[in-house]
């Protein structure tokens, strides 16, 4: 993995002249001066010298500026302490200080159908700018709770929980203790997060909730794991399940907890995909050809390869220099993890992306009623200037799998098709991927013992000997 920077030292005030210099539209620049806009850059980074004009970090667009443009658009409305608007609904639970965590609602300063602001399932048509825009409009009220407060929530928390149950936007009024800071977190991990401020008061209107969710929440004997699975089976979107889990609404009475948003996303992906894998995929017949799926999105290239065989899975990401995770690097950074038939016993080092893609893959295999060995390859090119969250992996893989595949009966052909869609050469992928290595180099016993038992396609061995 790429080394991470220690966070924040240098503070640059918006009033310094450089912003006006960079943002050419005079009015936009003036707008910024009204907001007390603070930008924090990582220590030792080049931002201070570059100031958005020289592209020293190598990214195609300055991520700070992308956020600033968005903030500029909502700046005039957020200067008030009183935020009235329709929450998509969205909540955020922080992870710092666990078990004492910051929790609160996300409310935009306007009403209407705001559901798109917090439904990543709908974001595949958006640009990076749009997504930052969505997120920056959401003003985050925050206050600290103990995670166990979820069982007997104080008033604000109980409103937050109620909000999290909603399946439609919830009209809310949030009174803040001070003006939202409009500070921009230049952080490699957190997805775009809008302005935040401590919350004093929260009032919400009617919440219209999905009956299935209500049922899962009121069932205090149902374990969180089982609740997640039940909701998923009933077709509730993953992002909603994740929201109620993180609000501490699922689980057995008395042991419910708030779950930091970050953790709850991966918890849901991992739980569902594990069960799909063990209880469904492994029971299904194997595919009998090689399949290649692909998708390009936001300068990310995804290729999914399915091999005939028992379940196994690998996910590899390649970050080009200039992308979010590899800002100063000169070479491509790879990270990846894999599992064999029996799955993993340790947390994947690459993090949530592994589980998000695994969910998409198992979900698809269940849908087509097949078993396969799956390899997910992702190249993040320099146009992907900042991380927008794990959802991008889940939704892109889902979409790629649903839009059809190119098939081949020959391993070599399949690899050629796959690598023609990627810019990194096949020999490098071969070195990096355990699964490819395993497929190409490892022989099967069936070849030596008895042809009757042969399950792999007949030309498999030929392609091995190439």
């Amino acid at each position, binding site marked *: 993995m790429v080394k991470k920077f220690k966070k924040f030292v240098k503070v640059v005030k918006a009033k310094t002249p450089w912003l006006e210099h960079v943002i050419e539209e005079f009015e936009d620049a003036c707008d910024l001066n009204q907001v007390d806009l603070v930008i924090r850059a990582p220590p030792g980074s080049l931002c201070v010298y570059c100031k958005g004009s020289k592209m020293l970090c190598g990214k195609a667009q300055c991520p700070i500026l992308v956020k600033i443009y968005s903030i500029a658009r909502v700046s005039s409305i957020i200067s008030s302490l009183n935020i009235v608007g329709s929450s998509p609904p969205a909540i955020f639970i922080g992870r710092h200080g666990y078990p004492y965590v910051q929790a609160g609602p996300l409310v935009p300063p306007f009403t209407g159908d705001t559901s798109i602001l917090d439904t990543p399932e709908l974001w595949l048509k958006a640009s990076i700018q749009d997504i930052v825009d969505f997120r920056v409009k959401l003003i985050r009220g925050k206050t600290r709770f103990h995670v166990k407060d979820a069982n007997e929530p104080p008033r604000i928390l109980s409103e937050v929980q109620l909000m999290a149950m909603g399946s439609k936007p919830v009209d809310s009024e949030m009174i803040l203790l001070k003006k939202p800071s409009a500070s921009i977190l230049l952080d490699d991990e957190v997805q775009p997060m809008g302005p935040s401020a401590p919350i004093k008061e929260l009032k919400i209107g009617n919440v219209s909730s999905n009956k299935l969710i209500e049922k899962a929440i009121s069932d205090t004997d149902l374990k969180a794991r089982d609740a997640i699975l039940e909701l998923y089976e009933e077709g509730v979107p993953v992002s909603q399940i994740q929201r109620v889990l993180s609000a501490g609404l699922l689980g057995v009475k008395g042991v419910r907890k708030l779950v930091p948003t970050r953790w709850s996303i991966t918890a849901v992906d991992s739980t569902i995909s594990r069960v799909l894998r063990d209880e469904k995929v492994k029971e299904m017949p194997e595919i009998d050809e090689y399949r290649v799926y692909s998708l390009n999105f936001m300068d990310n290239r995804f290729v999914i390869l399915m091999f005939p065989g028992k379940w196994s899975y690998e996910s590899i990401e390649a970050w080009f220099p200039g992308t979010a995770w590899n800002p100063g690097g000169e070479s491509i950074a790879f990270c990846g993890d894999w599992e064999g038939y029996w799955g993993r016993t340790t947390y994947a080092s690459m993090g949530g992306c592994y589980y998000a893609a695994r969910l998409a893959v198992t979900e698809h295999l269940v849908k087509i009623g097949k078993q396969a060995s799956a390899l997910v390859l992702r190249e993040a090119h320099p146009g992907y200037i900042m991380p927008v969250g794990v959802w991008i992996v889940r939704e892109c893989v889902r979409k790629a799998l649903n839009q059809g595949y190119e098939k081949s009966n020959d391993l070599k052909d399949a690899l050629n098709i796959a690598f023609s869609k990627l810019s990194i050469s096949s020999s490098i992928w071969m070195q990096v991927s355990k699964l490819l290595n395993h497929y190409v*180099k*490892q022989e*099967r*016993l069936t070849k030596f013992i008895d042809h009757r038992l042969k399950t792999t396609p007949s030309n498999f061995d030929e392609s091995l000997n190439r």
Partner: protein
Amino acid sequence: MFKAVFRDARLWYRIVDALASLIDEGTIKASEEGVRLRAMDPSKIAMIDFEMPRDAFDEYECDGEVMLGLNFDEVKKVVKRGSAKEKVQLEVPPGSARLKIIFKGKATRSFSIPLIDIEYEELPTPSLSFNVKATAMADIFEEALKDVELVSDYVKLEGRSNAIVVKGQSDRGEVETTLTTETGALLELEVKEEAIASYSLEYLMDMITANKAAEVVTLEFSSGMPLSLTFPIPGGGTIRYYLAPRLEE
């Protein structure tokens, strides 16, 4: 009706542990001659062949053939409760679909677990001829594999006229262990033709768990052919593994 008493519950656990390293469920076939399990791992890269003749048991009774479909993870958990001072009795009462596992020591402890219904597939005995055959001290072989694990995901076995060489190499480094009869690492070495072949270390490390139940291991292989590892269990019976090779670069 099937009933067998084995003298050492701890050793029995080690045997079960070795079987469970490769498969999660399988059918043990009990007949008048003894018990046998032959199964391939799901990816068809490795195979296990376990047999224990009736003489290896203190008591043994079996009417006809009895199929014991087992979830080895479950069996392992139960058998782990036994100690070396206890005997273990395995029993399927007539007409029952449960396996009774009874530990007999100062106390008599009895477990009963359900048998599972698995499609039984009679696998043929692999008829392979090997050019290299060596019997090694199991713990020395295990150490050699662990050394290779530091640098590589697969191991290269070389059979020379006077030694077995266990090698690993990658961009992380190179490791080499030489086993010979002179130093006592090998008890026997028979080389018809010198051979060299690569095998997945991941599978080998699973297989080597069997050395807790055995002291020596017999390696058999040829260039580009499967490897066979045979662990003789003290008192009778063997655990034998087959592993498909990796293609050479």
